């Protein structure tokens, strides 16, 4: 039995689902004993987090969940941290990187594994999974942690765990890393399909998703997945005025959303008079809105994944313009 291997291959439960009905007898002294380990000055997080451009040698966390290029939410129970091991590459307008996951479980290192024993980079010593390198979309990287260079690493001389445990660990980590490369695999599939579309939009709200495409020429329905459809103009063969228009008017949406595409980029129109905020998911960049007659309009938007937030919204609306 190896506790680390068992943990990594499982899907850890959320503790809230277990705590209901579980009653511990708590004494004030129990809490005090624990608190005595941590003084009020123990933890001083920085209020500012750097968000540098992604480069080789940097360590980043990866989002626990992300919307892929098919509009599907991908979730992991074991959010990785990764070391960027290549410079960013442009693939049809999107940034792609090669990364190697890092793990705090240095006891699972093999003799040929790279170990960084410096704790001040990530907060813990870690091993670099050089055998688990993956290409990923840069947009799934979330927080910058720190940077390291070759001198920070040393090869591990001793092998604390058995060969079987190390092999199991590597197999599981490679399996868990599918979460990373899925981002690029789906994008590449979409690139192929996108040759049939003028532009598309993926919308996700309150657990539901929908994708709409504006077809080039005659729409090919065999290309569509279950949650996808063509724009009304394409389906009905309407005039060119409506050609570059996508409508989202679902019952569960708080307001109607329209998307147009022109030479300057995308125009996003929200049919609401509420105060809403639009930001690019990868950089948190906000966009200025124009408010006209119960409509909020954002123009000249580049392609990308956006978040629409507002006080009146139950949930964040995410929309990918592609």
């Amino acid at each position, binding site marked *: 039995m190896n506790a680390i291997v068992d943990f990594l291959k499982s899907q850890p439960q959320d503790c809230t689902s277990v705590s209901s009905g579980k009653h511990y007898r708590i004494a004030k002294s129990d809490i005090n004993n624990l608190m005595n380990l*941590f003084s009020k000055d123990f933890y001083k997080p920085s209020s500012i987090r750097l968000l540098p451009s992604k480069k080789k040698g940097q360590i980043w966390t990866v989002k626990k969940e992300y919307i892929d290029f098919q509009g599907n939410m991908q979730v992991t129970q074991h959010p990785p941290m990764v070391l960027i091991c290549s410079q960013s590459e442009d693939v049809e307008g999107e940034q792609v990187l090669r990364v190697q996951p890092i793990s705090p479980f240095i*006891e699972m290192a093999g003799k040929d594994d790279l170990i960084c024993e410096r704790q001040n980079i*990530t907060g813990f010593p870690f091993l670099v999974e050089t055998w688990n390198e993956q290409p990923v979309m840069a947009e799934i990287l979330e*927080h910058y942690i720190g940077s390291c260079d070759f001198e920070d690493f040393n090869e591990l001389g001793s092998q604390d765990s058995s060969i079987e*445990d190390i092999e199991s660990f590597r197999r599981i980590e490679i399996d868990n890393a599918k979460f990373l490369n899925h981002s690029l695999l789906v994008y590449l599939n979409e690139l192929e399909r996108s040759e049939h579309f003028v532009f598309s939009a993926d919308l996700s709200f309150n657990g539901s998703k929908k994708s709409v495409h504006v077809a080039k020429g005659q729409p090919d329905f065999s290309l569509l997945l279950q949650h996808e459809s063509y724009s009304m103009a394409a389906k009905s063969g309407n005039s060119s005025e409506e050609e570059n228009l996508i409508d989202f008017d679902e019952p569960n949406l708080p307001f109607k959303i329209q998307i147009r595409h022109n030479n300057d980029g995308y125009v996003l129109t929200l049919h609401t008079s509420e105060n809403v905020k639009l930001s690019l998911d990868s950089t948190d960049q906000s966009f200025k809105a124009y408010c006209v007659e119960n409509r909020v309009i954002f123009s000249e938007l580049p392609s990308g994944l956006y978040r629409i937030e507002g006080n009146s919204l139950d949930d964040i609306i995410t929309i990918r313009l592609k």
Partner: protein
Amino acid sequence: MFKDNDILELLSGNLSEESYINILSAVGSMVNRYNWPKEIIISRNQSDRWEDEDIKELAHNYFEWLVVNNKLKYIENIPRNYIGYYFAQMLVSFISDRIKEEQSKAGLSFRQCKEIVFNICREDFIINDINNESYVCVDESSSFKLAKDIDELPKYLTKHSVDPIKNNAKSMIRLAVEDVLNTINGSIPISKLYEIVYMLCRAEAKTTDVDSIQYKEEEETDCDYYESIQKIVSEMNTADAPIILDYLFQDKGKVSLSEMEEKYKIPRSTIHYKMEAFRQSIGRYFRPESDEDGIKFLKKLASTLDEIVNAEYNESEQ
């Protein structure tokens, strides 16, 4: 797993009762989910079941381990929304350490061996249930034949001692299982297989037999002393043994040369000369590795001189 906010409250020194309960629940849920052995916590009560107090003790031990081992020295580097998961990882690391510690103390336990044997049999061999008992065999052709003389197997099969330090239990047990099943010509009750494999794989008592190690060490040390003492004794006049014992090994306080002169009717200068010669002889033939070593040697030397004195007294009596 741990919630980020609960851990942040703890780190900030503002732990609420609700967050404390959430933390205990998270530890408890992981204990149950991963079936961690009870012996990993310090106080071992008789029950095999994890009770609330056990979970509490484990949680407190875990947080102490984090602080003592500086696992939180740079905790600010970890993003807030990652911190809950990091603490779950560290808990697993803590448990893994404790399990290894317990295993290295106890060696391979029968329960561990049984678990591993069962998994190997399930994966790679055939298990048949006959009359509510499970039998293991290599292939279908062996499944209807019961193996004979299986009790003799441990006598002539190769031992595959598990080294808890190297953590090679699985590979050693696999070898033992394969040896047994390839040797017998038929099926073997799985309960018997557990026993035989355990006998083949249990490490020889090495690190746990402290008394025998100490005794062996003492024996080896006595041999070293013997040579040195023999050389020292060979250079002295055995008639001087009582004088040396009285003057150098007196435990009633320092004795003066005058007292010695009066007692033994030998000039002080002669006594002084003999004592110096003896001291130099010790220095020539023995170099202590430590104070303790030196004291042991001197005791042994005193004992030898005492034997010489007794031997001479007995001779004179005869």
